[in-house]
C-alpha cells in the first residue's frame, strides 16, 4: 500500500507551515569570503556568494519556500587569485598528429574565455578548449607529460581506452592526484580504432565543465574502415551555466547540483555557442561526436539532412542504421554520417521535450547549436552511392560471435541504482515527494534548477548497490579473473527519492549492451558507457581482459562526486583472487 503511505507522507508534509522551510541561512558566513575582491573576479563574479538567483527556465517560477536559501557549500570559480586580464585567450582545439613513440606535453592552464560578450576565467589543455585533438594510429603508444598549472589537484583519464591500469588517471585508485604545479607522465596505448576523449578524474563537475576535455581519434590501418566521405568533423558538446554575465559558482569542497547534475543554459559545440560549417551540395560529412557535458543528454539532428549512425564508443556497429537524430548521454560517443543534398542552410539542433513541472505539461525545447551552409557547387567526389549503402561490419559481428554463448547466462553481478538524501530544504522534499508520481525515463533539461542548485553531495548520496551483499559504492568488493566474460545486470530503481537516468561508465574494458528490459539488443557495438534510463534493467556483457583496478561509475559529474562509483578488480592471470565468472 505504498500509495497510501505516500499520501500520508505528503499530507503530513503539507501540514508543516512554510515558515519552517528555510533551513539554511540566506548568506552563510563561510560562503562569503573566498571569491569577493579577488582579482580574477572581473570575469563576472561581481556577486560571488551563493545567494545569487539561479536562472529559472521560462514559465517555471522559483518556489517561494526556496527563495533566499543557498547551497551549503562555499562558492568556487577558477582563477580566484589570477588576473584575468593577463590570462591567455583560449584557443580552439588544434590537431596533434602523433605516431607511435611520440611524446605530447599537455598542460592544464587557466585561460580567458569570452562567450557572447562575457568574459570568464576557465581552464584549457595547452590553452585550448577543447584540448588538442590527438590523432594517432591504432596500436600506437604515446607518452603524455601532463603538467598541472591550475588551482586544483587534477589528473588525466583516457576515457574508453583499454590502456595499462597505472595510466588510467584515477586518483586514489591508480595514481595520486597531481597537485597544482606538479606533473605526471602517462604512457597511453590505443588498441582500438575510433573516437575517445580525455578529461580530469578530479572534481569533474568543475574541471571538465570549465573546459578540460579533448578528443583522441584513433585511426584504423584499414583504408575502408569507414565509408568514404568528403569531410570529417569532430564535435565536443558541453554546456555552461550562466546567469546574466556571471558563471554560477561551483561548490568548493563538494559538488552542488547534486540531485540532477549541472545542466548549463549555454550550449556549446567545441566550446563555441555557434558552430559553423560550409560544405558543397551533396557532400557527405562524418561527425565524431562526444558528449563532454556534466549531465545533459542530447538529441542532435541536422534539420532535413539524412543521417546514419556508424560507430559508438569502442567500435563500429554490426550494421549501420538510418537515424532521425543522435542521442548522447554524458561521455558517450557516436560516429554519424550526414549528407547535405540541397543548397542552403541546415541547422544543427538539440531538440527535446522538456517537462514544465509547475504546469504539469511537456513543452518542446529546441536549441540551435550551429549552421551548416551548403554551397551550390556539387560535391566532388560524389559519395551519394556509398552514403546510400548501409554497411554490415562483418568483422565486428565475428568479434562479437565469441561472446554470444555468454548472452543467456545468469548475471554474475546485479547492481541497483538509487539515492539517499538528508537535510534537503523542506520545500524540495515536499515538491519531489508529490512530483515523482511521474518520473521521466530521461531528464533532458533541468526543469527545477532551484531545487537542484540547493542540493550538495553533503545531502545527496548516489548509490550503486550490490544486490547480493547490500554493499554500496566503494564498499563493494568485486574481483573477477582476467579473461572473464562478466554479465552485469543494472536496475535503475524508479522508487527512489529522485529517480534519474545514469550513464554508467566502465574504465579500461569494453562491454556490450546485450539487452534492455528483457529485450535483446539486435545491433551490437562495443561500449564503455551505457545509458540506464529510470526504471530500466540493462544487461551488460563485460570483456574483462585488461587487468587492474577499474572504476565503474555514473558519468554525471555530480553523481560521481556524490559517491556513485565502485571498482571492478580484474585480477591478472595467475593472480591470487578470482571470484568472478570464468569462461
Amino acid at each position, binding site marked *: 500500500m505504498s500509495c497510501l503511505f505516500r499520501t500520508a507522507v505528503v499530507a503530513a508534509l503539507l501540514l508543516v507551515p512554510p515558515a519552517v522551510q528555510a533551513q539554511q541561512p540566506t548568506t552563510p558566513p563561510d560562503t562569503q569570503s573566498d571569491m569577493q575582491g579577488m582579482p580574477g573576479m572581473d570575469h563576472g563574479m561581481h556577486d560571488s556568494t551563493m545567494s545569487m538567483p539561479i536562472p529559472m527556465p521560462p514559465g517555471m517560477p522559483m518556489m517561494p519556500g526556496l527563495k533566499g536559501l543557498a547551497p551549503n557549500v562555499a562558492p568556487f570559480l577558477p582563477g580566484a587569485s589570477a588576473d584575468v586580464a593577463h590570462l591567455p585567450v583560449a584557443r580552439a582545439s588544434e590537431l596533434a598528429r602523433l605516431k607511435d613513440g611520440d611524446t605530447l606535453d599537455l598542460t592544464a592552464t587557466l585561460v580567458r574565455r569570452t562567450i557572447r560578450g562575457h568574459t570568464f576565467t576557465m581552464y584549457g589543455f595547452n590553452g585550448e578548449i577543447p584540448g588538442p585533438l590527438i590523432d594517432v594510429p591504432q596500436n600506437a603508444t604515446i607518452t603524455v607529460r601532463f603538467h598541472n598549472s591550475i588551482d586544483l589537484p587534477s589528473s588525466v583519464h583516457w576515457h574508453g581506452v583499454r590502456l595499462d591500469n597505472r595510466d588510467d588517471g584515477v586518483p586514489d585508485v591508480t595514481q595520486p592526484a597531481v597537485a597544482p604545479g606538479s606533473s605526471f607522465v602517462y604512457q597511453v596505448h590505443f588498441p582500438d580504432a575510433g573516437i575517445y576523449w580525455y578529461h580530469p578524474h578530479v572534481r569533474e563537475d568543475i574541471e571538465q565543465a570549465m573546459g578540460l576535455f579533448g578528443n583522441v581519434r584513433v585511426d584504423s590501418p584499414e583504408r575502408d574502415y569507414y565509408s568514404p566521405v568528403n569531410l570529417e568533423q569532430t564535435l565536443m558538446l558541453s554546456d555552461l551555466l550562466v546567469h546574466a554575465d556571471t558563471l554560477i559558482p561551483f561548490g568548493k569542497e563538494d559538488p552542488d547540483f547534486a540531485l540532477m547534475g549541472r545542466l548549463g543554459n549555454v550550449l556549446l559545440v567545441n566550446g563555441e555557442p555557434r558552430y559553423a560549417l560550409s560544405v558543397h551540395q551533396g557532400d557527405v560529412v562524418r561527425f565524431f561526436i562526444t558528449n563532454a557535458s556534466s549531465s545533459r543528454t542530447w538529441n542532435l539532428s541536422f534539420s532535413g539532412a539524412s543521417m546514419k549512425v556508424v560507430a559508438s564508443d569502442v567500435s563500429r556497429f554490426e550494421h549501420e542504421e538510418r537515424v532521425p537524430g543522435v542521442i548522447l548521454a554524458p561521455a558517450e560517443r557516436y560516429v554519424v554520417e550526414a549528407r547535405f543534398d540541397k543548397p542552403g542552410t541546415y541547422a544543427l539542433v538539440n531538440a527535446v521535450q522538456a517537462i514544465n513541472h509547475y504546469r504539469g505539461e511537456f513543452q518542446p525545447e529546441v536549441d540551435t547549436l550551429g549552421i551548416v551552409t551548403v554551397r551550390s557547387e556539387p560535391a566532388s567526389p560524389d559519395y551519394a552511392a556509398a552514403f546510400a549503402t548501409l554497411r554490415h561490419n562483418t568483422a565486428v559481428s565475428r568479434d562479437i560471435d565469441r561472446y554470444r554463448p555468454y548472452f543467456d547466462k545468469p548475471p554474475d553481478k546485479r547492481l541497483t541504482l538509487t539515492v539517499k538524501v538528508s537535510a534537503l530544504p523542506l520545500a524540495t522534499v515536499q515538491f519531489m515527494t508529490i512530483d515523482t508520481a*511521474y518520473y521521466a525515463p530521461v531528464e533532458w533539461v533541468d526543469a527545477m534548477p532551484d531545487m537542484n542548485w540547493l542540493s550538495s553531495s553533503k545531502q545527496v548520496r548516489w548509490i550503486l548497490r550490490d544486490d547480493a551483499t547490500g554493499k554500496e559504492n566503494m564498499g563493494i568488493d568485486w574481483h573477477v579473473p582476467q579473461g572473464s566474460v562478466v554479465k552485469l545486470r543494472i536496475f535503475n530503481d524508479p522508487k527512489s527519492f529522485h529517480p534519474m537516468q545514469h550513464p554508467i561508465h566502465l574504465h579500461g574494458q569494453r562491454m556490450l549492451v546485450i539487452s534492455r528490459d528483457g529485450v535483446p539488443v539486435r545491433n551490437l557495438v562495443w561500449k564503455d558507457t551505457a545509458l540506464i534510463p529510470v526504471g530500466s534493467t540493462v544487461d551488460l556483457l563485460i570483456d574483462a581482459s585488461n587487468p587492474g583496478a577499474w572504476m565503474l561509475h555514473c558519468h554525471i559529474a555530480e553523481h560521481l562526486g556524490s559517491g556513485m562509483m565502485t571498482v571492478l578488480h580484474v585480477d591478472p592471470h595467475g593472480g591470487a583472487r578470482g571470484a568472478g565468472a570464468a569462461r
Partner: protein
Amino acid sequence: MSLFEAGRRIRRPATLLALVMFMTAGTAGPYDITLLSTPQAPGARGHARLIFAPSPFGVALTQDGHAVYDMQITASGLPQPSSLGAFTTYVAWAVSPDLTGWHRLGPVTNGTTTVGHADLNKFLLVITAEADTTGASSRGPTVLHGTSPSGWLQSFLTHPLFRGISQ
C-alpha cells in the same frame, strides 16, 4: 468480514488482478499502464508496458524529442468481438488527451501482444472493437482504456507550495 474471509473471496484471477492494479495505481513504474474495463466488456482486464522502440542509442526519440515506444499489451477476459456487434477484432489506439488524435497501434487479443509505435508525450491507450484492423479511426466501442504514465504529471499552479506566485 475478516481479512481471512476476504482472502478466500478474491481467489478468482481477474479479481486478484484488479486488486493488484488498484493497490499499485499511481505507483507503477514509468513504463506501466493499468487498463480499466468499460461497461461494454466488464470482465476485461489488462495492462500495458511501454518499451523503447529499437534504437542504436538505447532510447528512441523522434527528431523533435518525443519518446518512441512499442506497447506490450496483456489482456484477459476480452469477449468475442462479434458479441459486441458487427466487429471482428480488437485494436489498440494511442489517443491524444483531448481525444482529437487517434493513432492506430495494432490488433490486440487476449494474452500478450506487442504493438507500436506511440510517440505522444501524454496519451490515452484505448482498445476498441472494430470491423477490421486497418481503419484510420475508431468506429467501435471501447473495451479497455488507460493513461500513459506521463499522465500522472500534475499541475502545481494552485498548489500551496507555489503560494505567492502570480501567473
